[in-house]
């Protein structure tokens, strides 16, 4: 297992360098005049050219990338070209917001999905039909609509939760819970719909296998059969989907962070990409890639732990 983890980390590092080079190249394609963007349309061209030179944009892309890489390897991700904020500090401020959402959504999705999926797969009948209907509804409802309704009802009308903003966990656990609850709920709906269906199908499939029938015929309690044997096999597809959803949550977080005014990585990505703020975008790209690599690794390890056959393969 250790060599497997080390191999995955090694290939992840290589991936990180390749993606950083590609991202830098794509972001540096001609067309965006950063100096003009920073100084505004009213600034004279001379000032714009001088500002571009000050940012080093008059040098070849390869030289700029190597400079950035050298600094990044020393822990210096530079400063935003548009707000002068230190990129590392900006990421450190914003990452907990998005991570809170992603972890919260993943936990809520995992718990609810596995409960619903197992319940539907084992009980079948009316329960199964209800769970399937809920799943279809969850898929059909547009995420932004769910978010807007949650804000309007529970924040603006009832005042149970704040409509905007984020309170760090370290500042106030209750405040943190209040600020992430609605965003987490709104992001979890689609995830629960997908993962619960996956778990349900797997449970039904595993429940029909010979070894499960044998276990049941020996008189083992149903709960033991389900939780000790069925779930161990049936969890793999659900976990894989959950892992993929965790990575994909960044996309959903963009909209949710905007609606809730949360200062996270998702909203940051949109704001800074449209401006062409390379130091910040590169920081976001690096954080995202590291997150994807670590998530995939974690899922692989979990699946291997649950299912020895997967470990061998």
């Amino acid at each position, binding site marked *: 297992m250790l060599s497997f983890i080390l191999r995955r980390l090694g290939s992840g590092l290589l991936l990180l360098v390749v993606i950083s080079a590609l991202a830098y190249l794509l972001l540096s394609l001609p067309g965006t005049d950063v100096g003009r963007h920073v100084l505004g349309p009213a600034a004279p061209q001379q000032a714009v050219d001088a500002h571009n030179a000050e940012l080093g944009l008059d040098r070849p892309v390869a030289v700029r990338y190597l400079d950035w890489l050298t600094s990044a390897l020393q822990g210096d991700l530079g400063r935003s070209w548009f707000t002068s904020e*230190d990129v590392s500090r900006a990421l450190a401020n914003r990452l907990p917001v998005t991570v809170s959402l992603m972890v919260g959504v993943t936990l809520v999705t995992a718990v609810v999905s596995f409960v619903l999926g197992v319940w539907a797969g084992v009980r079948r009948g009316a329960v199964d039909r209800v769970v399937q209907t809920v799943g279809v509804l969850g898929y059909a409802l547009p995420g932004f609509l769910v978010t807007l309704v949650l804000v309007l009802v529970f924040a603006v009308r009832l005042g149970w939760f704040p409509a905007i*903003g984020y309170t760090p966990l370290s500042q106030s656990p209750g*405040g943190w819970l209040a600020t992430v609850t609605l965003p987490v709920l709104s992001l979890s709906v689609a995830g629960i719909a997908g993962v619960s269906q996956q778990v349900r199908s797997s449970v039904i499939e595993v429940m029909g296998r010979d070894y499960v029938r044998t276990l049941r015929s020996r008189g083992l309690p149903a709960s033991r059969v389900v939780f000790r044997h069925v779930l161990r096999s049936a969890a793999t597809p659900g976990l894989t989907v959950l892992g993929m959803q965790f990575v994909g949550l960044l996309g959903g977080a963009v909209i949710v962070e905007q609606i809730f005014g949360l200062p996270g990585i998702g909203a*940051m990505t949109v704001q800074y990409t449209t401006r062409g703020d390379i130091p910040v975008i590169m920081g976001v790209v690096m954080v995202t890639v590291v997150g994807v690599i670590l998530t995939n690794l974690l899922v692989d390890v979990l699946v291997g732990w649950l299912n020895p056959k997967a470990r061998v393969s």
Partner: protein
Amino acid sequence: MQTKTRINTGVAAAGALALMLTGCAGSSADTDSSSLTIGTMTVPQSLDPAEAMGSAMPYFQAVYDTLVKREPDGGYAPMLATGWTYDESLTELTLTLREDVTFDDGTPFDAEAVKANLERFRDGGGGQAQTMALLEEVEVVDATTAVLHLEQPNPAMVFYLSDAAGLMANPAAFDGDSLTTDPDGTGPYELDSGRTAVGTTWVYTRADGYWGEELPYDEVAINLFDNENAIVNGVRTGQINAALLQDVDQQAVAESDPEVQTQPQAIDYQGIILFDRDGHITPELAEPGVRQAINHAVDRETMLEQLRNGQGETTNQIFGPQTDAYDPELDSYYDHDPERARELLADAGYPDGFALTLPRMSEIVSDPLATSLQSDLADVGIDLTWDNLDSGSALNSIFTEQAYPGMVMNNAQPAEDWVTTVELVLPGTFNFFGTTDETVQELTRAIQTSPEGEAADQARELNRHLVEQGWFVPFYRMTFLHVSDGTVDVEPQSGMAVPALYNYAPAE
């Protein structure tokens, strides 16, 4: 019985959780009468005055004072400068300075500081550095007297000294780039670096021993958002005390909530700026008749009604109502008259119309606006094509490559008409082909060399000339909405969308 008990327990737990969360709700931005939270979509490039922009002034006004204070009505009042006088040639502006002001480290605010700041601003390459382009040098007469020597008269110099150029920082902090995130001024507040997350929220706390009149709040937070939906929700729940709304849909939401206090202000105008009045890209635009035809073709009333729910005032002029140049008659100089537009095109030698290509940035030109303009112009024979540009490349194509004959823009209408003249009429960024004529030259020279307030007739004449010649195609002044949660009174700033930080006070 057991089931009922479980249900009751669940309800109680849910209630307790809700109570706990409700108690915590808004803890990140809870406000009281001694704190002010402003929601905005404007972000400063940094907190270094050399990089300041007028639209981001509240961020700077918290920590820096300007030489001259601009009052809400657009008038000027003493601040760090207690007086200012021009010589007869209008090329020497003498400033008398306060003598009781020091920076945090004990460095005195004096004429040397004024010289260091203004010359740094001029040479610093910031977005508004060109406003000091006519400043030759600052002469230090004594500690409390500085003379600004100008290459030519600049009727907007006092305006600029009340704006970004007038922000005074500690010269001792000019080495390095510490001012970008660690401001050092003489202002009423200090930046609370520990609670500030640049790019998200800026928190200012009252500065001890401020030399001037204290502002009413002990603490000011400016929170940055990228959409007005979040801002409106924040105001409705009291997490944001005050904000400015530009989007008509969000304005409608705010107005529908009885708890939200609203105050409309017609401010920026939207319209086409025609760069190519000499016909370099689109030869037809060199003809005044063609430009007039475009003005007649646009159905401003319908656009205002359909695109902005009627929130605004149609206009044909670029100067705002607060300026000397403003002439109310010019708001309706061009009526919607497609027939007259076709006649003008025929008289100009284009009876079959012509093709016009304009850049389109979706942030400014919405789908309905694009369609509406296309339809209006097509009605008189002008085939308008939109080039869809992303915001990253648009400014480059328009201003650096100068690839288009005009563009639709939202423009401010400053209270000082010379600011508009410099930005839009004289050769420069928005007149990059340098179009001019004898009348424009004569009138601008007269305005530039006249003492303050003595060139109002020429300013109005210039305005009328520009409208008659169809230099621009303004559509309407847009009504923006100042909103508050009811705890704050906001006094709008004449000629500016963003109120000065001095204009906020607890509601009476």
